[in-house]
């Protein structure tokens, strides 16, 4: 393969064009359009022969080049005599290449900065300490950040059930102790989190019975916030015998 270009490296058609211009020492302000088009198409062929997916942008640029080339072949129209320069079909491409080159180099410069988390490090102990600083004033944020947060959230929600439980025979007692363990260090747990991703009937029944046992023992509270909504489990305070009235104050916070 005569094209020993590292194809992975090119971030786009403009990048590839700049490379070809530099490599063949062309004058960017007077690009030999026939030659660059040939080089460019050859590069695309090289990509194809390597079975690389050629992004649509590369093909669009190919047709742009061919188009410019064909316009260059047309005889100069009489009306263009006053401002020949403006009629150069390559003008926009040159604009774009020069512009792209500037940002490409700006990117290189940015890369040389001492980047936080890569080249320099700040103290990393104290991120998100917000909970502990109950009444600290908050820095203002834009409304768009709010929506961005939501968008990020929706990308992941609703959460996948996290526990894949493997077992051969199910007993209610085992389930009870397993649930207690799960509940041990959480303040609440969704029912879905208790069963495997595709629970079979048996698993569901045993889990449900175990929950009822626990509820009877007053070791958990079971809540559902709407009909058909998800079921939530809340472990009760340690002394299991004590009756816990379902007060609002009890609902939320510890």
């Amino acid at each position, binding site marked *: 393969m005569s094209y020993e270009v590292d194809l992975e490296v090119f971030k786009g058609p403009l990048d590839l064009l700049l490379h070809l211009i530099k490599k063949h020492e062309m004058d960017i302000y007077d690009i030999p359009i026939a030659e660059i088009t040939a080089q460019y198409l050859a590069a695309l062929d090289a990509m194809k022969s390597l079975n690389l997916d050629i992004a649509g942008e590369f093909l669009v640029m190919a047709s742009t080049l061919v188009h410019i080339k064909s316009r260059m072949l047309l005889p100069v129209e009489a009306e263009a005599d006053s401002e020949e320069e403006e009629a150069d079909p390559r003008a926009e491409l040159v604009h774009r290449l020069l512009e792209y080159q500037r940002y490409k180099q700006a990117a290189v410069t940015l*890369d*040389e900065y001492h980047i936080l988390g*890569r*080249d320099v*490090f*700040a*103290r*990393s*102990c104290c991120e*998100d*300490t*917000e*909970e502990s*600083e*109950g*009444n*600290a*004033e*908050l*820095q*203002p*944020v*834009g*409304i*768009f*950040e*709010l*929506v*961005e*947060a*939501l*968008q*990020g*959230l*929706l*990308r*992941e*929600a*609703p*959460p996948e059930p996290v526990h894949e439980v493997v077992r051969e025979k199910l007993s209610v007692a085992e389930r009870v102790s397993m649930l207690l363990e799960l509940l041990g260090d*959480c*303040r*609440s747990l*969704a029912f879905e989190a208790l069963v495997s991703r595709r629970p079979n009937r048996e698993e569901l029944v045993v889990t449900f019975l175990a929950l009822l046992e626990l509820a009877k023992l007053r070791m958990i*509270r079971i*809540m*559902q*916030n*709407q*009909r058909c*909504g*998800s079921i*939530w489990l809340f472990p009760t305070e340690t002394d299991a015998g004590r009756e816990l009235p*379902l007060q*609002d104050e009890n*609902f*939320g*916070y*510890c």
Partner: protein
Amino acid sequence: MRDVNCRCRMKILDTAELKAVIEALLFAAPGPVRLEQLALAVEAEPDRVKRQLDELEKEYRHMQRGFVLVELADGYQLRTRPEHAEWVRRLHSSRPVRISRAALETLAIVAYRQPVTRADIEYLRGVDSGGVVKSLLDKRLVRIVGKMDAPGRPLLYGTSREFLEFFGLRTLKDLPTLKEFTELTRESESLLLDFEAGIEEEPSPAAPEESGEG
């Protein structure tokens, strides 16, 4: 990553630089660091590292510095001096903090889905959100707007006047519609539209008691 970061052979550190690097490691570490970890990271014998730790410890103690080096069960750690605790606390309380991701997410859910229960929030966020809700209540960005007519009568939350002020909105109607954010990706578009279904109208501030959710 740039070339400079890839040099795999590292030079052997002279004593003064070793001390500086150890200081850097202690400074940047998220918690206590064991002697062996330090030695491994700087490629020096533990004895040599220990000597520099002792040096640093003495230095911090004798010179008037802002922190000291303490040896804990699971390693060494830099800590501010107990005498300075009051000032540190003051800074923490006077310093406007950045709103946490958790708080922002929770606010977003409350804003767009109000009235909403804590369980709704937790379902969407996938994590326990009691602490965040409480802190938002404390900051008055969120308020209790009623109780749901359902078993357990869970509390319903909505946004407050302070919420509007905080985000510089005149009314809830000024909240950007989620659709306006869908241009980024097709994928998020469907997510957002799902989410928004039902609250197409102005998110009405609190329709407590009766509201059975959208």
